[in-house]
């Protein structure tokens, strides 16, 4: 998807997001013997999205650990193992099923450090595929990143690029606290070039993925490429859009967002969550609080329609944020 048409440089290679993620897993398993991967069908089956394919053969059933269908308990077990000297990576097959494990994440992973007065840390990483776009209908298409970003004690990241898919996991594992990593399911097949030496990246700062003057488009995860496409379309109309990829939802790098908006004086937030109560609302509120006086127009949101995701493709696509809607929102702001 991105960079796909750029010639591959000597020190870089073509790779998919899926493979970059698998490399990151392999790398972590090789670097630290305390690391193991646990989840439904991560082993024998090769992972529901084939991310861990091959790792079972290489690392064996102890470290690539298939679990029964018991989301609450294997997530809780990951927390317990982290308390007791391991560095678990727990894959929850999709965010949809993470609802069954939310109690463990909110009431244990996020609170144990605080409730114990700082005696323990919970160095666990939750990998959670998220998002819609595959016609999986109402129970299999949620985008709940914003909920996780609400919870003190958690860190929440969303790798959108190949670099981040390759690099965020190790950084997350080095973090003493629980990190929730959201991987948008539509990104796995994305292919592009990655530096051969690509490695750990920070998980603290937002990134400006495209510089621009007239408006700031703020997004994360699966919506990044739709937003970049919208920016491209806007450029054709002589509107110069800056694109900020949040990368981390908690903590939120408000500084980068506000600095951009201070320059462009306009902002549109793109978020696959349902509009009401979306994470986009938080970003909008932060801009309200931190850049109100620089705004030339109200901050707008492009989110998912307030409907459980329908099965047919045309309705699903109509429900989700699309480049055309982003372009329209920007033009409305520009009074164009």
């Amino acid at each position, binding site marked *: 998807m991105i960079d796909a048409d750029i010639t591959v440089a000597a020190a870089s290679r073509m790779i998919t997001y899926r493979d970059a993620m698998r490399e990151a897993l392999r790398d972590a398993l090789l670097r630290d013997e305390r690391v193991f991967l646990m989840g439904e069908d991560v082993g024998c089956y090769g992972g*529901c999205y084939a991310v861990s394919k091959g790792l079972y053969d290489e690392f064996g059933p102890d470290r690539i650990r298939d679990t029964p269908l018991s989301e609450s308990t294997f997530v809780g077990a990951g927390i317990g193992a982290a308390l007791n000297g391991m560095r678990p990576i727990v894959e929850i097959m999709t965010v949809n099923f993470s609802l069954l494990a939310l109690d463990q994440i909110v009431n244990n992973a996020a609170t144990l450090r605080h409730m114990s007065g700082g005696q323990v840390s919970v160095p666990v990483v939750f990998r959670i595929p998220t998002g819609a776009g595959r016609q999986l209908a109402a129970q*299999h298409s949620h985008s709940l990143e914003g909920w996780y970003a609400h919870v003190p004690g958690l860190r929440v990241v969303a790798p959108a690029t190949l670099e981040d898919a390759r690099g965020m996991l190790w950084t997350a594992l080095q973090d003493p606290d629980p990190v929730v990593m959201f991987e948008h399911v539509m990104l796995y097949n994305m292919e592009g070039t990655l530096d051969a030496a690509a490695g750990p990246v920070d998980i603290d700062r937002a990134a400006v993925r495209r510089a621009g003057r007239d408006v700031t488009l703020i997004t994360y995860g699966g919506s990044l490429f739709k937003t970049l496409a919208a920016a491209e379309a806007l450029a054709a109309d002589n509107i110069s859009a800056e694109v900020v990829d949040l990368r981390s939802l908690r903590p939120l790098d408000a500084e980068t967002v506000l600095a951009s908006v201070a320059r462009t004086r306009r902002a549109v937030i793109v978020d696959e969550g349902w509009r*009401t109560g979306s994470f986009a609302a938080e970003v909008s509120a932060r801009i309200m609080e931190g850049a109100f006086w620089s705004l030339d127009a109200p901050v707008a949101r492009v989110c998912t329609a307030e409907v459980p995701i329908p099965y047919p493709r045309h309705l699903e696509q109509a429900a989700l944020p699309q480049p055309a809607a982003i372009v329209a929102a920007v033009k409305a702001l520009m009074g164009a």
Partner: protein
Amino acid sequence: MSDLSPPPHAKPRLTRDHLLGLLRQMVRIRRFEERCGELYQQEKIRGFLHLYIGEEAVAAGVMGCLHPEDAVVATYREHGHAILRGVPMTAVMAEMYGKAEGCSHGRGGSMHLFDVGTRFFGGNAIVAGGLPLAVGMALADRMRGLPRVTACFFGDGAVAEGEFHESLNLAALWKLPVLFVCENNLYAMGTRLDRAQSQTDLHLKAAVYQVASEAVDGMDVVAVEAAARRMTDAIRDGAGPQFLECRTYRFRAHSMFDPQLYRDKAEVDDWKRHDPVARLSAWMREAGMLHDTDLPTIERETEAEIEAAVAFAEAGKWEPVEDLAKDVYTREVHP
């Protein structure tokens, strides 16, 4: 409604007519599913598609024991159940296409077939998510004094989920009229039962809640039906919930994305020797109950039914995009 609905308290029947009926139902599922697999390759059907091929004896054996006023709660692997429950194949196929004429008006797709007319309450894509619903439906029947059964289908994988435990307990505690049907096909996606559960005799797990519980050969439709009839009769007699473990096998991949790295072809082939359709026809043939024209007739009629369903689905309409926000609330609500 299934055309196999028996009168109350009927005994298992081994008449030619009855067995032919069971055979026909299994063939209807088999051919429908095969056609769906092709349509998936042709990208007519999208999303997840979970085929039931190999497991037909379970739906066929159970469904005939239900009355029209009973209810069914199923999983994402539920096309066969829907069809045998009496949801028109046309409406099921249109739903798989996502057309407005589908049984869920296209909104649900393969995993969410609904049909209130035949009291078919989905089509649930959260593993074990249907069990609490079934318990609640049975609770309502009990409180309303209605002598109905709720049949709840789920897999071996669902037995590991917390909701299984909670639901069995609640149904047993309140003596609710639920028939739990565990379709134990030995795998939950790629995870073999003994790699997921410390107790692989799943009916023992149910028994500990004081639920009457039994395991049957799920490749033998007559055995399934006999057990299901005993159990539905018992429920109607007020004996409370019953648990039927059907030992079966899926011949196809878990879904259309599954490369089946986790099992040998030899294992699949072994199980195919117990093919429920072949088995019933062979048995009937030996017993002189299957005439030479029977199967060809069934096949021909089924073929016609399926082609009509495909034509219906093809002719169906896409719901207009303007209607996107429909059916979120019963009355209009603007968030």
